[in-house]
């Protein structure tokens, strides 16, 4: 039995790799052309098929439905909204609710995250253990479960409005949410706002001036008494001259619910709590890793200059750690925004709930609505990334890196 000569190894795979690797050459060009053509053909098939199916089912394609009346109400809206408004307004209401819960969630997640990270690195044994326990507990439980926990176990356990917990008969906490007095602007409102703004700007200017003096001539100017005086004094002056800026509309229990006042609905509170505590656990680990990535010598150098631990962290360690922290931190912000769509489980009227949910089911325009919703989330994510990149660019520039 003769042994057949061994075939030479197939050249196809390496050639394909070379072609897709972007090497110049005739074969690479042909392959890329084929790839683009296939892509174009698939997209054409999808569009044509969708159109044929929609026509067969006599569903009107397009965005005309957005001008129709919505006909349903929403529990929380940042802009005036009623059932007789068009779907476009429902979209805006949902989008604003999503942004509201995301922005507030990001703020608290960052705050809690940094505090927990610092706690975990703290030399205080108890604080470090508590922070570590927090991270391990929160990070390892599913988010949806946590949202339902806050909503169904914690907030729903509050008393009904008639037995609500009240503070000074103006703040009421019940299973309908937190009701607080609502500020109503009076004649003195605008001067008051101007006074506050002027005071803040002046205080910042003063602080910067003092800082420059410190760096240039080494003279220490005590700023805070002046700043505090301005921030309290100017608005006070405005009140004396122009009258009170706001009066408060105190909520009263009438019928089933409170009338008047402003209200934080439990759905919003539960969602914000769950999103910020959950994301904070991840942020804490990111921040901790960032801080640990800064060489120990930096800390020791700071201490040997006589700086306190807090100052070393604030002035030396964290600015360097930020370069490491920022990219994964951005990811967490994006996650939080996207996770806010879990709102649907507890009836918080976010974009997915009112637009990709109710509106979709009422109009049946699945392709259009899912398309718009995906586009919006993509846009929010890209804008968030852009802001964070800009911030990162500023940090690296200020550090000369």
């Amino acid at each position, binding site marked *: 039995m003769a042994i057949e000569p061994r075939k030479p190894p197939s050249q196809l795979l390496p050639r394909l790799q070379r072609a897709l690797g972007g090497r110049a050459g005739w074969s690479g060009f042909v392959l890329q052309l084929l790839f683009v053509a296939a892509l174009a053909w698939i997209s054409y098939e*999808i*569009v044509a*098929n*969708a159109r*044929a*199916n*929609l026509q*067969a*089912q*006599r*569903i*009107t394609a397009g965005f005309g*439905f957005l001008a129709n009346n919505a*006909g*349903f*109400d*929403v*529990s929380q809206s940042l802009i005036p909204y*009623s*059932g007789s408004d068009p779907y476009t307004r429902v979209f805006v209401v949902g989008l604003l609710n999503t942004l509201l819960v995301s922005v507030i969630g990001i703020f608290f997640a960052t705050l809690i995250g940094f505090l927990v990270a610092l706690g975990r690195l703290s030399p205080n044994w108890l604080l470090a253990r508590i922070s570590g326990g927090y991270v391990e507990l929160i990070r390892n439980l599913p988010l*949806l479960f946590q949202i339902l926990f806050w909503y*169904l176990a914690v907030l*729903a356990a509050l008393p*009904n409005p008639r037995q609500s917990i009240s503070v000074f008969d103006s703040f009421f906490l019940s*299973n*309908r949410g937190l009701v607080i007095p609502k500020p109503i602007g009076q004649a003195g409102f605008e001067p008051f706002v101007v006074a506050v703004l002027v005071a803040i700007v002046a205080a910042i200017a003063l602080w910067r001036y003092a800082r420059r003096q410190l760096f240039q001539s080494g003279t220490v100017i005590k700023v805070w008494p002046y700043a505090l005086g301005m921030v309290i004094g100017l608005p006070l002056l405005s009140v004396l001259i122009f009258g009170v800026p706001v009066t408060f509309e105190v909520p009263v229990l*009438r*019928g*089933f*619910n409170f*009338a008047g006042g402003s209200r934080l*609905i*439990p*759905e919003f509170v539960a969602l914000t709590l769950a999103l910020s505590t959950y994301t904070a656990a991840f942020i804490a680990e990111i921040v901790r890793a960032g801080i640990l990535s800064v060489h120990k010598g930096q800390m020791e150098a700071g201490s040997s200059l006589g700086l306190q631990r807090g100052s070393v962290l604030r002035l030396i360690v964290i600015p360097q750690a930020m370069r490491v922290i920022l990219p994964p931190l951005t990811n967490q912000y994006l996650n939080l925004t996207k996770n806010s*769509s*879990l709102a*649907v*489980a*507890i*009836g918080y*009227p976010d974009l*997915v*709930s009112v637009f*990709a*949910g*109710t509106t*979709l*089911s*009422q*109009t*049946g325009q*699945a*392709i259009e609505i*899912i398309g718009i919703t*995906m586009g919006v989330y993509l846009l929010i994510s890209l804008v968030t990334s852009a802001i964070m990149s800009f911030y990162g660019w500023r940090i690296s520039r200020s550090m000369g890196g």
Partner: protein
Amino acid sequence: MKRISLVVTLALAVGLSAQAASAQTLKTIKDRGMLSCGVSQGLPGFSTPDDKGNWTGLDVDICRAIAAAIFNDATKIKFVPLSAKDRFTALQSGEIDVLSRNTTWTLSRDTSLGANFTGVTYYDGQGFLVKKSLKVNSALELNSASVCVQTGTTTEQNLADYFKGNNMKYEVIAFATADETVKAYESGRCDVFTSDVSQLYAERLKVANPAEHVVLPEVISKEPLGPMVRHGDDQWFDIVKWTLYAMVGAEELGLTQKNVDEMAKSDKPEVKRAVGTDGNLGEQLGLTKDWMVRIVKAVGNYGESFERNVGSGSKLGIARGLNQLWSKGGIQYAPPIR
């Protein structure tokens, strides 16, 4: 879990574009050997699974009747539980062949959703469930109340109309599934749970202390519930439509699950046409001559199905009311089967 629901919607939206245009639903079902039927996620009396996973209910019986008419086997069904919000997308995309899920027939749903209602299985209306301790006697006393509702329903829109029409304020909290809605109502987040009256009775069975809750007398809307099929396949539309009429017609003729074999030997011309010993009505639909016999054997006539699932034979104990036959004071009526 909810993210999955978005993913499903998304997949269905893509499916809508990928599935080949097909007008041959019956053939597809026969090839598959199974009817795909969209039902609720658990509504006692209408569509609910027992502890062994067997689905029962009035809406389920419609699907069982269709499967019996096609396969002579009422178990060849894949039940797809759907939330109110996802149901139409599932139908549009071809995921299910028929949607039999306590769905209200409205003009806009009949047109713009790309689907057709095939008839009315249950004449319903919207009502309110409240706690007895609130001492409310009428829906008109609900000013400033918090109302829990399931999203993606006509209920949500009727609610807005009713409170606006009566110059009352309210707060609406909309949930994706019926269970979440009832849970929120039970926990005290809302004063009122609103839905179709039949559903209120069914959901009341699920709360901890049913006797502490009361359905208010007002019925604020017409809610004719019925099965739905996709536009574009008239034969399939006819089959689903006449399956329901076969059940109602069987009750009119006095055909029951017990006597159907005997009645098949009857000499009465109208019974002969129905059971297929005279003419070929079933074949005209694309089914077999004995299609009605198969249906009645599987699920009984409309009255039997009603009493077994929601009427006197069930925990719900709902009276026939509007759903009685036209000849007995109701409005259930089948066009002539001839």
